[in-house]
């Protein structure tokens, strides 16, 4: 009894400590942000000559107190400085390294791993929670395995983060000096949050087996929550630096920090970027773990393992799709806010130098959608009864390909002057119609709906409703009507938007997107109602998938990675020749906007390095498992020898 009480106190006490830690973390952030500025700013008081000159020229000499009396200023106190006017000589060149490319390389690799290790724990926690609720150990095992795969990723994310910080300080000291002046306090909090994340990640992962049951399992879930919370704080804090560089806030026209860190953090683009990255991290984490499962599926000879990794691959795939489907909408919000912040920046993004990048983006997302649908169609092969849906695959394929082609048809075609003369216009008489946003919005909404339909077909491949209620009888008919109504609305609005002014046309994308969202939400709810009572029609075989289906999972992971790299270039490059847009100009020799092919090959090089490291990341848990197995068999062998020896001795 006493022992039970002691144990209960032990885990409850530990739970209480964790609960207090998580609960007070926002207070800690708030307190730190409002802490007297001088002590932290004191850390960055080394001022270069250009900054001193600028400060003398710009800073007010004295400040009036509340009573109107003039307060004398301590000349030794650090004060926020205006943005320096950097010159080429302010950018050190170290060992002939191209500063721009070195920072690009480190930043992108850091972001790849960071996105992965921030995304994976989110769905790991959800899967673990499902396992607790359903009491199905398979969920717990899978969540544990996902976590195992991501553990090496934490070290790699931190290593590249460290490399990036050092490169920035060494190669861009003037820029970092200014950023530290604005975000000094935030950076210190960011560094401290690493301790919180490290605590949670290690206790969460290494405590998995120890905290497998009862109250300890709840404590384990709580640790997972702490891991995700600290990860989220890390993400949003670092996002604030990126969004500040694009749309600075909390400073005056000269770039002088006004003293309110929250104002500098919560800039115009901060929340859109937070949402976009949060969703993208989940999609990205899902795509990489799907690739891991595919890798294991392809390299195992065991039937059981194949079934397990097929299931794992499918779950990861669904996670990636759940992230992917709302991602265009989050991207739309981010772009809209870019326009709202600066029309010039918005037009540079969508109608200027980067316009062709969005055709490339359409190709990549189209490739992802095609792969996703192909995987789902292959997935039908797991169930005998799914043959009744085969007739829908071809028409769906045709619709998806047409939508894909429409989506990446450019507005202005690449033509020689001779072709231009023959056509008589920069726009093709027929294809030109597909180049405008009206057609593209129609195409992308159709793509999303078609993919969701493929998913719904797979979901009901092997089951039929057994209830006799309203939804069991009429639910599917209502779903079909929903699809038809939504697609009709999307196409009609698309056609209508050709005949109305541009400013009205932009607004039509909202009802188009809403139509898609309504189908996604309502049809999911109706599915739940239809199959409240259901029965299996035939046998469902996990692991019964063709080899090529697993390659589509690699296609997804590689395309996601490349797309992330490309859009990272785009987001960063729309600042053009500014470190901090409109405030701090980049006057280094590398202050150029790279061409699209240059960026593409740079991204390719980074992705190849990343892939090599990902294989290393996949290999680590396999190696650990092999060692464990070897140890087990050795112990088993030793025992056997002992038994034999003992028998012989007798």
């Amino acid at each position: 009894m006493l022992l039970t009480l002691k144990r209960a106190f032990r885990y409850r006490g530990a739970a209480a400590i964790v609960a207090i830690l998580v609960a007070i973390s926002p207070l800690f952030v708030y307190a730190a942000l409002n802490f007297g500025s001088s002590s932290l700013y004191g850390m960055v008081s080394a001022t270069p000559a250009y900054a001193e000159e600028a400060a003398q020229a710009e800073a007010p000499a004295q400040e009036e107190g509340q009573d109107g009396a003039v307060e004398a200023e301590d000349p030794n106190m650090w004060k926020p400085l205006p943005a320096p006017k950097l010159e080429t000589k302010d950018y050190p060149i170290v060992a002939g390294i191209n500063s721009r490319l070195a920072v690009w390389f480190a930043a992108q690799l850091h972001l790849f791993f960071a996105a992965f290790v921030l995304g994976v724990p989110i769905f790991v926690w959800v899967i673990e929670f499902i396992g607790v609720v359903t009491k199905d150990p398979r969920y717990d095992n899978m969540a544990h395995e996902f976590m195992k795969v991501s553990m090496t990723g934490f070290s790699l994310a931190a290593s590249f983060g460290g490399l990036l910080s050092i490169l920035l300080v060494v190669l861009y000291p003037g820029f970092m000096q200014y950023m530290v002046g604005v975000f000094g306090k935030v950076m210190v909090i960011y560094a401290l949050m690493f301790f919180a994340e490290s605590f949670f990640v290690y206790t969460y992962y290494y405590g998995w087996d120890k905290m497998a049951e009862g109250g300890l399992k709840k404590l384990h879930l709580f640790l997972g929550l702490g891991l995700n919370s600290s990860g989220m704080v890390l993400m949003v804090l670092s996002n604030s630096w990126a969004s500040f560089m694009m749309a600075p806030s909390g400073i005056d026209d000269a770039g002088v920090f006004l003293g309110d860190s929250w104002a500098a953090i919560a800039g115009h683009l901060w929340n859109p970027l937070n949402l976009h990255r949060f969703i993208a991290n989940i999609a990205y984490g899902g795509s990489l773990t799907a690739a891991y499962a595919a890798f294991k599926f392809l390299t195992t000879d065991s039937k059981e393992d194949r079934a397990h990794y097929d299931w794992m691959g499918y779950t990861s795939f669904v996670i990636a799709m759940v992230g992917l489907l709302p991602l265009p909408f989050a991207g739309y919000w981010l772009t809209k806010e870019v326009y709202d912040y600066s029309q010039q920046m918005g037009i540079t993004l969508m109608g200027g130098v980067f316009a062709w990048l969005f055709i490339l983006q359409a190709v990549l997302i189209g490739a992802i959608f095609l792969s996703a649908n192909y995987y789902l169609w292959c997935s039908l092969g797991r169930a005998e009864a799914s043959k009744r849906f085969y007739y829908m695959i071809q028409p769906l394929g045709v619709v998806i390909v047409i939508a894909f082609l429409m989506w990446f048809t450019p507005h202005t075609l690449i033509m020689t002057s001779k072709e231009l003369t023959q056509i008589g216009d920069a726009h093709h008489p027929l294809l030109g119609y597909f180049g405008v946003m009206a057609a593209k919005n129609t195409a992308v909404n159709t793509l999303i709906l078609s993919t969701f339909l493929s998913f719904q077909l797979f979901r009901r491949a092997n089951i039929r409703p057994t209830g006799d209620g309203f939804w069991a009888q009429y639910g599917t008919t209502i779903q079909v009507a929903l699809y038809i109504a939504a697609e009709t609305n999307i196409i009609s609005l698309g056609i209508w938007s050709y005949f109305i002014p541009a400013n009205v046309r932009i607004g039509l994308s909202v009802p188009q997107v809403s139509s898609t969202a309504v189908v996604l939400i309502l049809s999911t709810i109706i599915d739940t109602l239809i199959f409240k009572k259901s029965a299996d029609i035939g046998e469902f075989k996990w692991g019964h998938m063709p080899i090529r289906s697993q390659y589509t999972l690699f296609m997804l992971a590689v395309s996601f990675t490349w797309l992330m790299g490309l859009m990272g270039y785009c987001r960063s490059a729309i600042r053009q020749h500014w470190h901090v847009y409109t405030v701090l100009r980049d006057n280094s020799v590398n202050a150029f906007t790279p061409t699209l092919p240059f960026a593409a090959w740079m991204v390719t090089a980074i992705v190849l390095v990343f892939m090599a490291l990902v294989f290393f990341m996949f290999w680590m848990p396999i190696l650990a498992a092999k060692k464990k197995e070897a140890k087990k068999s050795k112990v088993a062998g030793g025992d056997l020898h002992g038994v034999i020896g003992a028998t012989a001795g007798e």
Partner: protein
Amino acid sequence: MGQLLKIVVFSLCVVCGFAGYTTFGLPLIIPEAPPVEEKLTGEITMDQYIALGKKIFEGKGTCTLCHNSLGRAPLLEQVAQVAPERLKDPRYKGKATTTEEYIHESMVEPSAYVVAGFGKKGTNDTVSPMPNISKGAIGLSDVEIGAVIAFLQDVGGTEVTVALPSGDAGAGSTEEEPAEIKVAENAKEAFSKFGCDTCHMHPLIEEGGDMGPDLGKVGATAGTRKEGYSAERFIRESIVNPNAVIAEGFDADTMPDDFATQMTVSELDMIINAILGNESS
């Protein structure tokens, strides 16, 4: 090991496919170099100042990003003409009294008057989405703003009232390299400077287009194209007033009609001589 190799090769093919498509499947657009502040050295004529304004209007000023036929912002060709009416408009909130002041104000304080239908959403056309172009990312100097005003007055067909800047005006920050208005030294440079190679072919043009007549052949027949016109006069007119005579098989309104204000006399002469076949390099 075999599977691993296949996966690696497959992934390599995918990423290289994307990069290859970007390189060979999309047109190469070379982004402009970071803008430098225009600095005028020595004396400048009003035509050159207007040409500078056009250059800034289409380049560093990024005006054409929005003020174009796509309807993002009002077209500015007639702004100088409509300025007096706008100054009398009850919605006008600024302090300008002349056309020149109005255009200047609309660049540095765009919300002083917002053209109906072009205001920020939800502001009932009281707030303009346009930035102050003397600050921020565009950051034009006074001389550059003056040049744009001169260009807009000129293109609107009104009197150009902007005073010419003095010799070293507009320097702004002295650390930046001056960007002079460079006069072409020979016909080849002139063809390139005015973009003739986009639509025309000529022995001095390495890779020309064929949207306009072949300038290498025009000289031979120019003297017979218009009654009473010598070959030289006909070519001169075709450059400064391109719609006067349209060659068979080509469309009107294709060639820019403002070369009279852009070219110096020597540049125009060099081009005419080259078309007549009097200049070989």
